[in-house]
């Protein structure tokens, strides 16, 4: 591996330790927090919908866990930027914004890992999942994670006071995880709202996973193509509008 790549990996690994492994090890409560909402939803779904609804609860839980982790990333990034002033050190030390986000988000991923493993195991148990369909689901989770980590980063660079993040985070998780059709089917929405739902990337995450578990791979791939295009758009928007080094503050 080239020297430049080794150095990039060290940056990502260092951030992952600092924002993930060490805090997880010393203050594990955040782990419980990240899992609490998807598990509560699963519980309610089980009570009201019984076993048939369990699969929907697990698919929704998979996506919800990712969004929760991205929401947590917003406050982590702001904490490092505003409270610690660590982002100033990162910028001036030549850690690239991409490595910074990936490192910080990977730290966060450790917190969502138990949830992902649980929901994934449940899905495998509840459905006749093939290897290809499994890979499809893992890829979807990864792209969702990357996409929403970038959105969280973009938001964090535009906010200048710690306290201003909480309303944003609440709206973020309602908008991307609670309202869109991740626990229910998009077809159950009346038409004009269905188009609105299609504008939300998590709708596609859910569609890909639902099509994968029902082994409709062609359908899953079509949705994945649209989803990948959305991810590309997010990457471009983040690149253009994130405030890593600018004239603002």
């Amino acid at each position, binding site marked *: 591996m080239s020297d430049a790549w080794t150095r990039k990996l060290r940056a990502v690994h260092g951030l992952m330790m600092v924002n993930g492994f060490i805090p997880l090890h010393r*203050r594990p409560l955040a782990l419980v927090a990240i899992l609490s909402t998807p598990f509560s939803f699963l519980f309610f779904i089980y009570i009201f919908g019984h076993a048939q609804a369990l699969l929907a609860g697990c698919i929704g839980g998979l996506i919800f866990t990712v969004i929760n982790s991205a929401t947590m990333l917003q406050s982590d990034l702001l904490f490092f930027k505003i409270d610690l002033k660590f982002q100033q050190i990162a910028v*001036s030390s030549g*850690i690239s914004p991409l490595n910074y986000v990936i490192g910080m988000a990977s730290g966060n991923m450790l917190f969502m890992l138990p949830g992902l493993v649980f929901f994934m195991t449940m899905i495998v148990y509840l459905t006749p999942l093939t290897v290809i369909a499994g890979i499809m689901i893992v890829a979807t989770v990864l792209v969702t994670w990357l996409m929403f980590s970038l959105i969280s980063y973009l938001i964090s660079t535009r906010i200048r006071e710690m306290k201003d993040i909480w309303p944003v985070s609440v709206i973020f998780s309602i908008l991307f995880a609670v309202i869109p059709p991740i626990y229910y089917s998009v077809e159950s929405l009346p038409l004009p709202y269905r188009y609105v739902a299609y504008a939300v990337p998590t709708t596609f995450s859910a569609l890909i996973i639902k099509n994968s578990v029902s082994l409709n791979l062609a359908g899953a791939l079509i949705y994945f193509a649209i989803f990948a295009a959305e991810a590309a758009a997010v990457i471009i928007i983040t690149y253009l509008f994130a405030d890593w080094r600018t004239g603002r503050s």
Partner: protein
Amino acid sequence: MPDPIVVSELSKSYVNGSRSTVALDSFSFRGNRNMILSLLGRNGSGKTTFAKIATTQLMPDSGDVYLNGTSVIDEPEEIRATISLVPQEGRPFGHLTPREHVYYYQRMIGETREKASTITEMIIEELDIESFQNTQCVNLSGGQKQTTMLAMALSKDAETYFLDEPTIGLDVITRKRVWEVIERIRRERKMVILTTHYLDEASVLSDEICIVSHGRLVSQGTLNDLRSRLGHDTRIRFSTRVDEKIVSSMGTLVDDEKGQILLTESGNVEEVLKTVGYMNGRIEIGPVGLDDVFVSMVGEDIDE
């Protein structure tokens, strides 16, 4: 060889809604050799804004900074490999220990495990922070946290160090330790740009001093240069008020928290004493210091 630092006509205004604040206004200075160069100025005079621009965090409206001939505007990547920063009002992460701060910072900037460990060991010993190196930072005192920030920044092998109020809240002994490290860095022919409100620190450490006011350079030189530009070499401090009319012809009278100070020439001392009387020993005479230079150069707008 290009100069280690050239700051050229730097201007920067912060715009928030319809409000615009001028932070730097054609700010320029030059450091023609590697040394400790201090930036002194009142709160809000633009020092941190300058440090942010020079460390590639903030874009100026116009102007540029060149470090060893490289532009911070055009070649930020090259610059970032050669600088280190202690940001103003930074603090360490409570879950980590000081040792972990230095070690993982070294890893983040690309060092191998072995090298990161060796460097960590060295800086911890040099700053004499072994006793709390393995304590989580939540459990440290304010000064111990600040020392952790310094340990991180000073652990980087840079060409130019930007230290923005690095010794704030440190006790006298720790501060001296930090001074020793800064002096070691100077001996290694590196540039240190130091911002501080501790004028004793600036006097002891600085090879040159830049006085900044309202985003502009007021004066630059060695402590002696600045002293001589003041036009006076002696300060006489009166602990009670004296009649301005009598002494103002013999120098510049400035207010002091406990009385008044007359900046004058050593040749005038006798006459001053004769004029005001000896006041039962409530007079102190000494050479002018950096605080006199500072107050007379930037203090005119104190009551604004």
